[in-house]
């Protein structure tokens, strides 16, 4: 019984996960998106195609230097629900991926293992304010799951129209399973113009974050 309880809890947690560089993981019908993320211990690239505004499929690669693995996966994201209001929008996404993780052979037998991740993200924004939360779990073979959750608030100091340079100041708080209950805050500057979104961040422990989203 205890085993099934943990299985249920794991599934529940994994259903509600994702990673931060993957904000807006679904595009418009026929849209392509490239999302790159770099931080001190992790970099990732995710390219996806959206056949509809409700889902996207793509390829994602993550290299985690802290856990010492590279995960290549087929990624599938679903926009579960969108709330459109006259001056705001809110979204609920489910994200998942399945693939192969490789290392230098010291941990994974033969240097590779089956792997996958899943989770969820939710956001609300208008032209002035932004909030989001996401949670994810990555499973590397039979090893302990790696969990991550993140929350953000942001404010735009000025409001521009389409095509203008939009600037956001954001505060992000991360919690990784390796850090226990410790929360790591990061201050970010988001620059958004047309089809390019770039973010620069610096955390309280000195980690640098760079995000770039290009949509076409």
């Amino acid at each position: 019984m205890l085993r099934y309880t943990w299985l249920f809890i794991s599934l529940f947690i994994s259903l509600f996960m994702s990673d931060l560089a993957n904000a807006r993981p679904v595009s418009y019908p026929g849209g392509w998106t490239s999302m790159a993320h770099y931080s001190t211990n992790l970099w990732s690239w995710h390219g996806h195609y959206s056949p509809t505004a409700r889902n996207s499929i793509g390829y994602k690669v993550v290299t985690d230097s802290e856990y010492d693995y590279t995960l290549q996966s087929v990624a599938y994201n679903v926009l579960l629900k969108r709330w459109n209001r006259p001056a705001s929008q809110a979204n609920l996404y489910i994200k998942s991926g399945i693939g192969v993780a490789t290392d230098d052979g010291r941990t994974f037998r033969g240097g590779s293992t089956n792997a996958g991740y899943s989770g969820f993200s939710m956001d609300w924004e208008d032209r002035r304010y932004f909030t989001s939360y996401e949670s994810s779990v990555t499973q590397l073979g039979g090893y302990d799951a790696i969990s991550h959750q993140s929350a953000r608030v942001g404010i735009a100091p000025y409001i521009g129209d389409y095509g203008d340079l939009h600037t956001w100041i954001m505060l992000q708080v991360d919690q990784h399973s390796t850090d226990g209950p410790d929360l790591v805050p990061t201050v970010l500057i988001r620059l958004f113009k047309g089809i390019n979104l770039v973010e620069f961040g610096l955390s309280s422990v000195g980690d640098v974050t760079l995000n770039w989203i290009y949509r076409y």
Partner: protein
Amino acid sequence: MKLFKLVSLVIVICVSVALPVFAGEMIHVKVNGLVCDFCARALEKVFLKHESVSKISVNLNNGTVDIELKHDHDISDETVSKLITDSGYNVVKIDRAKPIEHAPSPALPVDIND
């Protein structure tokens, strides 16, 4: 030289008068959920794929989309609504403005609430 200036002036006037004749119908749509440039870009890409659309202008401040049709082309309100809904946004209202060469009739608002 005077003759050249006169002919140029006549050409400019003729072109200015004639241009609106070739302009297509304008569709003005109020849309919910337009909050960022990605939203605007999505609607641009989707509508410019349609054979009847010559130009689209998204105004994030007002949450409006202006769609200019090609001359002698049309697109139904249902199609406009479907393209916007399929892109992930909600249509509030569709107004049509007839092209100048047609009799100036008042635009009839169409409410589409889902």
